[in-house]
């Protein structure tokens, strides 16, 4: 099955994060700023990758994030993704988020904490140098 799946490999720009996925490891990474001109378009590929991964397999999903600045529609898109994971978690699926932040920028940590509210799956906010 894994061979049929196109993994994501989106180059980062100033306004969009780097996105990579690894179906075999059940892992999706996003890193950078996010204020794309068309958030819906940008996130739809990411959203459907996660949706398919959750629908088609039973393996755990890990979302690794190092997002810095996000515009409103990106915040909404991330909430949609977390909602999807919360649903899967409710059905007994193992899902987790690891949100990395630069310890020199504690604001990012506070922001991640705001996101984490209301979710019951494992949601770690971790400092990472560099």
């Amino acid at each position, binding site marked *: 099955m894994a061979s049929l799946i196109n993994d994501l490999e989106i180059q980062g720009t100033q306004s969009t994060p780097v996105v990579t996925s690894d179906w075999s490891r059940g892992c999706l990474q996003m890193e950078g700023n996010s204020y794309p001109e068309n958030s819906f378009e940008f996130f739809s590929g990411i959203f459907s990758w996660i949706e398919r991964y959750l629908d088609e397999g039973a393996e755990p999903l890990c979302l690794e994030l190092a997002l810095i600045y996000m*515009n*409103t529609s990106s915040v909404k898109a991330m*909430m949609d993704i977390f909602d999807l994971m919360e649903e899967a978690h409710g059905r007994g699926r193992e899902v987790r988020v690891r949100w990395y932040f630069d310890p020199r920028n504690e604001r990012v940590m506070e922001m991640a904490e705001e996101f984490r*509210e*209301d979710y019951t799956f494992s949601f770690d906010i971790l400092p990472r140098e560099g």
Partner: protein
Amino acid sequence: MAAAHQEPAMSAGDPDLLDRVRRVLEDPVHRENPLLPLLAELHHYAGVQDQRMERLLRIADGYQFLQHEQSLTLAERCEKQLRRTEKLARISDRYQRELLELTESLREAANKDPLTGLANRRYLMERIRDEIQRARRQGSALGICIMDVDHFKQINDRFGHETGDQALCRIAAVVQDSVRSYDVYGRWGGEEFLLILPQTATEEALGVIQRVRSCINGIHVPQGKAAGMLLSASFGLTTLRAGEEDPDILLKRADQALFRAKDAGRNRVEQG
């Protein structure tokens, strides 16, 4: 309450009434009664109506239940959506606030000299342009003065760069205290400072600059038990002339005046 409510005895829904009528119909005593067929028809009709009424009530109750359920889930969904929207706005507001603060600190970094906290060359250059335009519009005077700390290299060489930096900070504080509230001033670079004196003609400008000069000449740079050093600065002052627009021409004139002040023995103001 509904359970305690008694149906009126005449209701078609009263099974007892229908039962009694049925018994009358079946009783052979009434077989020849001419009203018998009519009563039989009425009895049948009442029975059918009774069943229909029951069905109607059941269906209506069902709909009511469904409606109730739906409005409950609708309220829940609405509540959830509202919480989500609030969260979205909260996070988004935070990002926006952070961005504003970042813009503010960038603006400050872009316009401020980090050592003395005064305006930097970039900011001063912008302001010279603005003030020239304003003076031209209003036909008012404008003074520009470049100030250079005398023998600053010696301070650095003799007492070290840290002492040199401290001296620059004290000079900055003295300039700040001795100019007028509407004067614009800042660090032009190295040990050079620039003063922009809006709506100020030569005579008045000389007064302001002499005051600054004399205050700086009161700064003593101490050096442990050694004698230390009394600071001084030289000044090149110029004013905007009719038809002038290019800040570089004014700055060049002020610079030339400054050179003359240095040549003439320092700790003085020269005009150009």
